[in-house]
């Protein structure tokens, strides 16, 4: 028997006596007998923490592919970036970890100010003035952007470039079932969105990736002009690390920016909790999904922060709310603010630059291998896709035997053929390089790949 309950049996009986009851069951007596659980839960009895730790050691022993044991070249929205001890130490302060939504600002200035700083940073990186306090992840942030576009235009048609991560598109489709949105995916040619190939008329949103999920740097002016022409919102899903040096979504004319913030201090975490980044233009502020923190003063005129524009939110607006989000990913937002504070202006640029440098170094080596052809001839940033002429899934398994997580199989991501890939998809490997990858690691990758492919 293990638990974290303070009550002694004496506590329990004296408390029951105070209530004029004789057993704990009395507290549940008003529950219809018909539905009461007769014999309790069919779950093993409690174990002590060290016993449970032993069970989990069994699980972890079956996870050979950790970024600590295998060199990670997988990306696709989840990146193996440096997370220094100082960021872990600060982000794990129990005041941040064990608080909830700052409903009482007088005792929540810590979280509120950290979110305010996070919002400032996301606004700068997106080039858009109105950030929110975080959403679940990039995919659901995209859904919120589409809902915003639907609300702004009163239209249903969402035109999404196939350069948007397949999972994000997939999630958008799922939720479109409820909103009734029509999802139109625009295929890529040579890794670039072929906007001409679809009818964008009457679009509520035009959505492009930057860089797109294959790493390709697309010129977004076409997409922007289409959005202008159609009176649609222009939504850019961007890599926030690349945003340290590339044109911002705002500079490309975006109305809405969405992105995945895991790269800012959150470990790979098997996909979650991650951080949905969201920012928009002034004119969409009333449609902003989720929480936003604003600066104000207290009754003695000291600067203070508070969640604001609450009238948009579900607890007040109920069925008319701009979104149903309540619990978000605040701790990851706080972590991102800390990580960005650690990186600083030039550290972020350095990380972005090193990612690009490493990726191009590896690309040049791999593209030279016999039988390997790049999916795109266009400029890319820190990710690139290759046709290997061999099942990517199989190659990944073989590379793993050489302690390398070689990348992601686009076939696995897209679950078969995908408009982002011309020709066969199952031999396409998506490769990522972060600032943590060394020349030795990359050279090892190349020789391992050479072995595997021959």
């Amino acid at each position: 028997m293990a638990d974290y309950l303070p009550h002694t049996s004496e506590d329990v009986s004296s408390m029951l006596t105070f209530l004029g009851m004789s057993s704990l069951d009395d507290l549940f007596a008003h529950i219809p007998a018909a539905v009461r659980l007769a014999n309790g839960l069919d779950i093993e009895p409690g174990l002590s923490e060290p016993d449970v730790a032993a069970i989990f050691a069994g699980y972890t022993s079956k996870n050979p592919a950790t970024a600590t044991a295998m060199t990670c070249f997988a990306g696709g929205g989840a990146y193996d970036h440096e997370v220094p001890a100082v960021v872990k130490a600060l982000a794990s302060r129990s005041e941040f970890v064990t608080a909830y939504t700052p409903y009482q600002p007088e005792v929540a200035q810590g979280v509120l100010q950290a979110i305010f700083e996070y919002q400032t940073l996301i606004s700068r990186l997106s080039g858009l003035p109105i950030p929110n306090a975080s959403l679940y992840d990039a995919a659901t942030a995209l859904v919120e952007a589409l809902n915003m576009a639907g609300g702004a235009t009163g239209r249903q048609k969402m035109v999404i470039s196939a350069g948007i991560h397949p999972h994000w598109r997939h999630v958008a489709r799922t939720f479109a079932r409820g909103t009734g949105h029509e999802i139109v995916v625009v295929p890529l040619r040579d890794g670039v969105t072929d906007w001409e190939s679809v009818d964008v008329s009457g679009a509520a949103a035009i959505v492009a990736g930057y860089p797109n999920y294959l790493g390709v740097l697309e010129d977004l002016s076409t997409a922007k002009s289409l959005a202008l022409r159609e009176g649609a919102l222009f939504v850019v899903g961007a890599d926030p690390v690349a945003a340290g040096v590339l044109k911002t979504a705002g500079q490309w004319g975006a109305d809405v920016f969405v992105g995945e913030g895991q790269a800012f201090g959150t470990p790979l975490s098997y996909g979650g909790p991650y951080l949905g980044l969201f920012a928009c233009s002034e004119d969409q502020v009333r449609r902003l999904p989720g929480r936003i923190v604003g600066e104000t003063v207290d009754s003695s005129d000291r600067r203070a922060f508070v969640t604001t524009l609450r009238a948009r939110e579900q607890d007040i607006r109920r069925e008319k709310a701009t979104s149903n989000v309540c619990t978000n990913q605040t701790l990851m937002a706080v972590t991102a603010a800390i990580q960005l504070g650690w990186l600083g202006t030039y550290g972020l640029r350095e990380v972005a630059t090193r990612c690009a440098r490493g990726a191009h170094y590896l690309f040049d080596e791999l593209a030279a291998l016999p039988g390997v052809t790049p999916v795109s001839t266009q400029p890319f940033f820190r990710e690139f896709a290759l046709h290997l002429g061999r099942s990517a899934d199989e190659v990944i398994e073989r590379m793993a035997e050489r302690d390398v997580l070689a990348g992601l199989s686009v076939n696995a991501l897209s679950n078969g053929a995908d408009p982002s890939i011309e020709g066969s998809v199952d031999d396409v490997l998506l490769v990522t390089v972060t600032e943590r990858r060394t020349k030795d690691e990359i050279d090892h990758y190349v020789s391992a790949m050479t072995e595997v492919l021959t």
Partner: protein
Amino acid sequence: MSAQPGGRAASAPLVGHESEPTLFEMSVSGRSSYQLRTTGIPERALKELVPTDHLNPDVVPVAEVSERDLVGHFTRLSHRQFSVDLGMYPLGSCTMKYNPKFCDAIAGDPGLNAVHPGTPASLCQGWLEILVTLEEKLCQITGMSAATLQPAAGAAGELTGLLLMRAYHDANGDDRRRVLIPDSAHGTNPASVTLGGYEVTTVPSNDRGLVDLAALRAALGPDVAGIMLTNPNTVGLFEEEIVEIAKAVHDVGGLLYYDGANLNAILGAVRPGDMGFDIVHMNLHKTFATPHGGGGPGAGPVAVASRLVDFLPGPRAARQADGSFDWMTPERSIGRVHGWHGNAMVLARALAYIDVHGGDGLTRVAQHAVLNANWLRHRLREILPAAYDRVCMHECTLSATSLKTKFGVRALDIAKALLDEGFHSPTVYFPLIVDEALMFEPTETESVQTLEALAQAIERIAERASVDPEPLHHAPQHTPVSRVDEARAARHLIATADAK
């Protein structure tokens, strides 16, 4: 010197009451903290790699602070933040129980958190086993057949559940428009209904704070897709007519959705599945003690009855005949609802919590949570009578109406005054059906001594109200900031340091 100092602690309540400068106010051009690995990769200028028309002509300012100032800043901010670890946090409907540090340690293991979500199943069998094991235990706890672990929080679970409802009806070729919701429901329910493409029909509560069965029956019809219920409901009372409710809804072909926010009350006592619910979401950050992180992350798995299993989001981790694990997508899956597999680290924490407690421990959790809420309700009956004065479940909704009428002291004043007494405020003005509502959820991890101290604090506040209510309108006074001007924040939005 324009920049603010990073080494002054005057914003730490320990030694002062000034406001903390922002990271940006502390920033000094040329300062830095970052240190990166030496890679040995030949240096090449960015413009050799990226066409210049893609490069930002400007440098995006982040902040430029020393590591020492970074640490000082966020450590001081942490001292300006209340948390469960500092004291009781009886925020009704949020289940702010103690979060075991052991589960933090589990989540801190690189064997779990250094795994890339795109790793082939063969290379992370341990993770798939965790997901399957958790799903099985959650199904046992709720009395359902299968579950998706993808939803990142309760609201995401609600919307997922509504899409399952829709997929189910669509599959049966019947097109239904309305979803019933009690007037006591949490705001995410109606919001989710709308996003699910349904219309909300509000069902009134009766004078016992429960769903008015007659009104419910009246509202039912062939166009009703289902009903969303929280049981115990948001008042903290058990819907005693749940069997009748279930029958009535099922009779018109509707489905029952269980909002699991209050699951902590019934662990091991009664299961949603046995009550007749078809779809159930859980808030692992509530019932299973995963830390709330200042507002998130959470996890909102959705469990369903057998007839809905085929519609669950995919891919789902599944146990194979040979004992290994793999991903599979249900035939008629509504599709993905998360970018990857859900908030995996939160899921792992919850499983660790469940394993430590076991079936017996989880049952005690509910018993003691309910015991604490009732003890507090009864202890406070004179000052803050319960909105519905009878046995409640894990939380009690009290009303400050009498204090308001007698002394003009409102629920908000009491909530703020409690901060000065060393307690976090309860949930106020929710549920909407209770006037001057103060909803206390003590949770099972608080001792009776702490409950008594809370009660005495409320007695002191009531005493002050009767003697001199005025100061209570200006509480709290001992906090880093006093009451903040919310109107001003909304009137003139300053959402970033660059606004204004």
